[in-house]
């Protein structure tokens, strides 16, 4: 678990005044510093939480972009240029991760040691539809759906249009979409539990979220396949 920032003081390269390591600018002389070691939240000076104010995040992103972007350092000395590039990449990576609810959840849980994502799912090589992780309550429906998808694809190849199959698939799509929406609602509930809780409560919320994220990934891959098949 690496959330606590190291507070080893280092000297600013420009004015030599010591500053906290995780800072983008020297508090004393305002010069740009090499990328700090902290996590994505610390880039924005935010407490690591799952519910965040997106307007505040965007405002900070624009404010920092104005100061850090390589465009501001086109005529600066070489090392300041390099740091501007590295710092801005960090800022952009951090913003991209935190502004998206799912990326943010995965990121924060990973910071707390959770194993999430396709690389842990024992995926079938391209990361899609890992049979070992089919949510147990959906086994039967998923089996039926996959059959229908196959039938639909076969029918498309021969140019036949099966209206009944099409309406079945459309129905299934709506059902799985509502399941997905339910997962998102559950995730939000767990966010609040995690943000408010400590120790044990967080552990429980974290476990629930890891399971929800896997279920969500599964559902959204399935939905993508159905949508593709219908739209083909």
């Amino acid at each position: 678990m690496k959330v606590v920032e190291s507070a080893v003081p280092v000297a600013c390269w420009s004015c030599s005044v010591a500053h906290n390591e995780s800072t983008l600018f020297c508090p004393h002389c305002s010069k740009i510093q090499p990328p700090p070691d902290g996590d994505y939240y610390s880039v924005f000076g935010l407490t690591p939480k799952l519910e965040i104010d997106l307007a505040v995040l965007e405002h900070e992103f624009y404010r920092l972009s104005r100061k850090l972007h390589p465009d501001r350092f086109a005529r600066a000395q070489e090392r300041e240029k390099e740091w501007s590039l590295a710092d801005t990449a960090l800022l952009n990576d951090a913003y991209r991760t935190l502004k998206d609810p799912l990326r943010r959840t995965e990121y924060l849980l990973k910071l707390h040691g959770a194993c999430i994502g396709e690389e842990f799912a024992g995926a079938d090589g391209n990361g899609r539809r890992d049979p070992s992780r089919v949510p147990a309550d959906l086994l039967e429906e998923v089996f039926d759906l996959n059959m229908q998808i196959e039938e639909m694809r076969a029918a498309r190849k021969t140019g036949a249009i099966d209206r009944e199959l099409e309406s079945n698939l459309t129905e299934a799509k709506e059902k799985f979409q509502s399941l997905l929406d339910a997962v998102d609602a559950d995730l939000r509930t767990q966010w609040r539990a995690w943000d408010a809780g400590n120790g044990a409560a967080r552990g429980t919320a974290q476990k629930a979220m890891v399971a929800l994220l896997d279920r969500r990934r599964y559902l959204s891959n399935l939905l993508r396949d159905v949508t593709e098949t219908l739209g083909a």
Partner: protein
Amino acid sequence: MSEGRVVGIDLGTTNSLVAYMEGDAPQVIPGADGSNLVPSVVALDPLPADGRSRPTVTVGNSARKALIETPERVIYSVKRLMGRGLDEMKDELKLFPFRLADDVEAGEVPRVQLGELRFTPPEISAYILRQLKRNAERFLGEPVTHAVITVPAYFNDAQRQATKDAGRMAGLHVLRLVNEPTAAALAYGLDRAKAGTIAVYDLGGGTFDISILKLRDGIFEVQSTNGDTHLGGDDIDNLLLAIALDEIYSEHGIDLRAHPGAVQALRKAAIDAKVRLSTETSARFDVELPNGDRYQREIPRAVFEMIIERVLERTMAPCKQALADAGITPAEIDEVVLVGGSTRIPAVRNLVDDLFQLGARGKRPHTELNPDEVVALGAAVQASILAGASKTTDEMLLLDVTPLSLGIEALGGVVARIIQRNSTIPASATEHFTTGVDGQTSVAIHVVQGEREIAADCRSLARFDLKGIPPMSAGLPRIEVRFLIDADGILQVSAREQRSGKAAEIAVKPTYGLTDDQVESMILESFDHAEEDFLKRLLVEARNEAETILAAVARGPMNPAWQQLTGEELAAIAAARRHLVAVKDGNDFAAIRNATIALDQATRRFAELMMDAAVTSAIRGKTMEAAGDDLGEAVTAPHPMAAAEFN
């Protein structure tokens, strides 16, 4: 001496332009012929007879003239070849008279045969850039060494790198590559500080881009971009050309493809017809064939629109994808900006109107700025942002995205995506690699760009060899590789072995691209920017211009138009002429230039009279071209007394 100004350059498929910031307003810099557009055409002049001097090239309008007489020494649309490998060029070769050198090996940057010599595409582009650089230096009266160059938003890493290489060969320090649609948004955003979502639809000569941006407090944040680097006005020309070639074959029994000069003349006629059809409801082909017959054909606009429908429809899918990636509907687009000469076609405007439901919402697309110039103007704005030279641009900031996902080839040839398309750049990703065999000291990594699932279907960017890994048991080394896409959209890679703490050595082998040494060896000339040399060159150029106009004035009395001038006008010409003769052998280039301009202005009415006479004689049956020959200058030149183009 200061580093000088930063100029903005639009290095286009068909035309190229250079612009700069005059105070708070961007302005296009005209060439010596007075034209803002420099056709992206390069002609190799006949080689010097002594066999020793460097070959010279002609760029722009004068090179275009050579296209019909010596097509084998001329190249155009070279942008289509930038950053491409031999196999990728095959499609281009079907449609364009590019002659590839026959000794190109796989993996090498292909070279184009021009007369007796061979050039890589970046070298050809460098000649165009050098011409623009000279135009800017001539106009500004100071050396120009720093530039912003625009590229299609959908250009991949190799195409971007090739463009940067070209800049370096031309003696330009390329401070930034800017995406063309984003540059256009900058040009439009300058005088209206507002918030909103805009779409830039950019259909140029050879490429199509669509970008969706969010504007807020001077920040231009690109949400998504998409496009097709093989779609543009060229495709329309090719369709018209193909139809004409077919008809000529069936009606006159001539396979014109055996006559490259005639094909070029036909292509020019096709382009003229296309341009006319944007304002007129019908256009006419009338071309003389090698056997003396004429190919005559009327094309009504309705037929033209049917012919090009399929080309225009190909812009739809990228637009829809860009909207989906930005997570918005067409109705949420507040403004649409049209860029590129092809957006003058009424059918294109109708398509854009439908797609973004503009008419239905009481809106019109923005076309206030010249679609041929808007990208260069935006490049000048970005140049000013980088130079920190203007208060207006101080508050502006461009946040662009990478158009294509970056991935590495994983087991089984599938792509593991590490940076998603439409990520704001600079963007980075860190990946960890290890060894599979005991004592293994190197690991090979294949980096690709594209959206397909299989690496072989994506564009191969480079193969990296991580070398110098300390020998350890399999799986024990932990090599951290950092991929970083910089603000130009170009990939940088660095690596270190974490257990030994050693920086791993990376041998980067771009799949297609020039090495640093190769670029170095292709630098067009030694760019010695000693002020003295530069002033010398300006002086030589100014004297040449003076000689040209003096010679033209000397021929004046032989032209009937001369008799129409008033005594006052003749006296003014004589005075200006005497003044120029007096200063032209001095060492003050500015004085020579000013005297040249004064004489040019004094003869302006004479020039107009000659022009009228030329038009009258054209109506009497002479061709415009012949009338132009009578004047010693093509009538398409903006001013018959204009100075010659220098090289």
